[in-house]
């Protein structure tokens, strides 16, 4: 069977590889301490991401929030337009636009912007997240959705309004714990 030295070397190599595989498989079995460690590191990783995100929002959006809070709503919207140049596609731009438009009484636009924000970042409807904006989104849905539904009833062929109502239902479902 092992006719020459080459066959012997091949057989020996095969045995070594098989032994090594067995050792690796046995070593990779469920280990409680490994499991706990990885859960902790995942948790820490998430904490770090949240902290970074909160710091990022504070750094870029505090001027907008200051304008909003002082009642300078048109200026706050303009500031967001400016940020849009440097942070295109940023969910917090949509979120703050929705917030400001809601304060301006533009319910249909607010619902659309807030739905876009939640589609980009589900943290806004997560109670446990430090980024949660549930009170804002709840008030947009409770104030805005009945108005846009009424509007759609009076104008059933309006596709734009149908889309806004759809956005309102989407937010309602996400607030209720529904998935994407």
């Amino acid at each position, binding site marked *: 069977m092992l006719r020459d030295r080459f066959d012997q070397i091949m057989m020996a190599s095969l045995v070594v590889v098989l032994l090594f595989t067995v050792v690796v498989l046995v070593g990779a079995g469920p280990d409680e301490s490994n499991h706990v460690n990885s859960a902790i590191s995942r948790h820490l990783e998430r904490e770090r991401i949240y902290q970074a995100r909160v710091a990022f929002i504070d750094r870029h959006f505090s001027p907008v929030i200051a304008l909003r809070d002082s009642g300078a*709503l048109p*200026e706050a919207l*303009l500031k967001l337009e400016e940020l849009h140049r440097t942070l295109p596609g940023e969910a917090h731009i949509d979120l703050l*636009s929705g917030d400001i*438009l809601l304060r301006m009484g*533009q319910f*249909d636009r607010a619902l659309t912007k807030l739905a876009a924000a939640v589609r980009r970042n589900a943290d806004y409807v997560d109670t446990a997240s430090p980024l949660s904006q549930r009170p804002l989104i709840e008030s947009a849905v409770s104030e805005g959705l009945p108005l846009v539904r009424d509007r759609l009833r*009076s*104008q059933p062929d309006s596709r*734009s309004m149908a889309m806004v109502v759809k956005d309102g239902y989407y937010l309602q479902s996400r607030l209720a714990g529904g998935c994407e």
Partner: protein
Amino acid sequence: MKYLILILTFFLTGVVLSGCDQPLEGPPIRIGYMNCNSVEETMERFRPLTVYLEQQLGRPCEAIPVDTQDLESRFAAGEFDFVHGNSLLYVILKENHDLQLVATEKRGQFGSRTAGAIIVRRDSPIQSLKDLKGKRMIFGPQLAPSGFLAQYDLMLQAGFDPDRELDYYALPRGTFKHEKVIYAVYFGDYDAAAAPALDLEIMTREGKISADDFRVLAQSETIPYCTFGASKNVDSKLTEKFRKVLLDLTPETTVEIDGQRLKVLDAAWIDGFETLLDKDYDLIRVMAKRVNMPPYQEF
């Protein structure tokens, strides 16, 4: 067998013909487009939309650029089947010539609506409308709902009569009037300006101005934006078809012109179209009455 060959021939002919452009039939549909800045710009913006409408409606369409001040008289003379103009022009043509509402243009933060703002430089000592007494102000063109009407009305509502209390006010000439009023305040030629919220938004987005350059002293309620209307003489089925083509437009809709494939909405600076109700224009009517502007002007 004979019948089968005949059916197959008809079927294949149909398939081949459906691949060709639809032949344009009937008299041309004349569409009047209000000039925002210049005839060249208007034609460049709206040619793709006009060609697209032509293809979808199967009728030749003619784009006719028209000066804002001439729009009513030319409409009354029967020059246009459809018109595209600002929301005050819609109200004027509705009241005086029974223009039919087709669709409203969407653009910017407020969608199918816009607003008029009164702005000053960020470092200006002017803090409220009352502080404008004895100051110099520049307005947009007189028939602009968010460049003149809304701001004039805002001041009247605040108990400030611009005609009596401003030291001086001016209207810009030539093209790019809305941008001119914004720059006029930026460079200090005027103390305050009547700027459309949409122009402030677009100029900020394009980096022409910074949000930190100005303060907004007051901003009007939102009013409908630019609007397509149809002459009452146009067949209602054609009006409905025209509306459907506009509402079906998406940012991806393209048309080929001179060997180039162009995005129809992008070219026209439009985000899309929406159907509003005539009563949505009531705020414009109220403002026009308070400001004593057409179609309610009294001497």
